[in-house]
């Protein structure tokens, strides 16, 4: 029982840490690069294109990043779930 709740506790902490990291990136690319810092970033161009960088983050870059974030979360969490189940079965 003790081990069981330890494992659950650990699983939950790792989940929260992963969520925190991904949401930090989520906020940085959209609210940060796309809005708050956009006027400053606009002095640069997205390499290889003619997009002002802030404008690109607001209309393209943030959306691409969001898609990647969800797939990363899904991939990491599904693996974490496997580890958790394996740990449970071993006891």
């Amino acid at each position, binding site marked *: 029982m003790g081990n069981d709740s330890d494992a*659950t506790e650990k*699983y*939950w902490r790792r*989940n929260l840490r992963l*969520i925190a990291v*991904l*949401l930090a990136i*989520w906020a940085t690319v*959209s*609210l940060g690069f*796309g*809005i*708050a810092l*956009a*006027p400053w970033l*606009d002095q640069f161009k*997205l390499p290889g*294109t*003619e*997009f*002002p960088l802030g*404008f*690109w983050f*607001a*209309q*393209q870059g*943030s*959306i*691409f990043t*969001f*898609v990647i*974030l*969800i*797939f990363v*979360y*899904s991939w990491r*969490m*599904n693996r*974490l*779930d*496997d580890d*958790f*189940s394996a740990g*449970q079965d071993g006891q």
Partner: protein
Amino acid sequence: MTVTAWTSLLVGASFLLYIVIAIRSRATSTGEFYIAGQHVPPLANGMATAADWMSAASFISMAGIISFSGYDGSVYLMGWTGGYVLLALLLAPYLRKFGKYTVPDFIGERYYSQTARLVAVICAIFISFTYVAGQMRGVGVVFSRFLEVDVTYGVIIGMAIVFIYAVLGGMKGITYTQVAQYCVLIFAFMVPAIFISLMVADTAIPQIGFGSTPDGEEMSLLARLDGLHEQLGFTKYTLGSGNTINLLAITFALMAGTAGLPHVIIRFYTVPSVRAARKSAGWALLFIAILYTTAPAVAVFARTNLIDTVENKSYAEIPDWFRKWEDTDLIAWVDKDGDGRVKYRAGNALDPAKPSFLEGRGVSGERLLSNTPTSNANELYVDRDIMVLANPEIAGLPNWVIALVAAGGLAAALSTAAGLLLVVSTSISHDLLRKWLRPDLSDREELLAARISAGAAVCIAGYLGINPPGYVAEVVAFAFGLAAASFFPAILMGIFMKRMNREGAISGMLVGLIFTASYIIYFRFLHPELDTVENWWWGISTKGIGTVGMCFNFMIAGIVRSFTPDPPEDVVRMVEEIRTPERRAG
């Protein structure tokens, strides 16, 4: 073949497809009717979610909104996609683990309270009806523009189709028609976009095209558009209006609102497992992103095309599409300076802004208006919807592409309408009847009740589509504000704060709701003349106020929780259960 013939053919064929799917996937139990028996594979659910989410507004209006607002339109792009990250990381997997049928179900059981359930039911029904009125209207509008059918008959045809597959198949029927509708709508959106990108930017990928410099040109498309804008007195296309706090608040409210919309959340109950729910959120956003990253490209192409085609041209030398869309009231021109040439400048050309046409033609052959011309130099009224609707014609694409846009617009409107109507129907049959008024209902009776309420909801939606309340646009701000200030925080705290109790959650929801609703009602309905940035609290508009409402919700919930009793042990165990991963079968 003519455009009308092509349109009838494509629309007819797509409707036939939806009906065949509906007949093949009839629901036989409440489990199938509410959540498609939880058999939907993640990829299919991703497509269904994308179709569920992308409405007539996303398909027809969004590119136009961005086209006319430039950088400021980004809030919709980021808000309506960023919400899926919140949904995928914070809500969907846990709600799937909970596994019950509706959002009010979760709120009611997590906060062990019928009052909480009732508040959630009312919000869900209100949000869904607000939204669905616009969808039905969209169906009618597409019919009237492309097939010259009266808007009323258009709405009735749309109702009949939704009625068949929603009442018969419930969630099961809706899911598989939505998969087909996604394919139709994305194909219909991408084909003209790719054609135009090839023509304007010499690349088949619009996302790259609008940031490039076309062969033989000196300036990039965006730099040229910025230049045109400055020349004509508009703000630069790639530059915002500068109210950063308001942009942040709007974006966040749209994100949290998206994550809290019941018809989107409910889609994640239909997959077989928590793992599938996570994956399917990724697919959903990928499928949405295809359209959402293309729309800003279409916006730039269409905007440049429009200015190049009409600015300082005489009425006679402008191509035919101009007069065709003038005939359908989407374009109007008033020759203020009497030189026979169209001047397109910043500001409203007309007062009131929407044109009302008179019989008869002016000197150049333009339709006459009863509006008063405004004192600025702008002579042109262009409805924003034209950017998608007329794009194929402006670019001179073949007739079948124009017809495709009609079929795509209908697919977008019908798929969203069906998802919303299902929320209304389950809220009534499951949350109100089974869980509250008539707990003794058998599964068969509940299924019958679900079908009847779905049928009734379709009829009410149709009525709202034929007689739209004059404030549809305002009401959509409502839907997002309320979802952000009520559902999102309540569900989030329900999952991540084990000790959040009934008293805290209910008072938080009520404060969030009442604050947000009062702010919107005050500025939109009671004192629209005060709706300017000087009067807004913290410079935040009604579109962004949901963010503030959400903060109040969290604060009040936390304070009330601290001096009221802890939730009962079985609720705490339920939360632990939701957080623990499921064992993999086999």
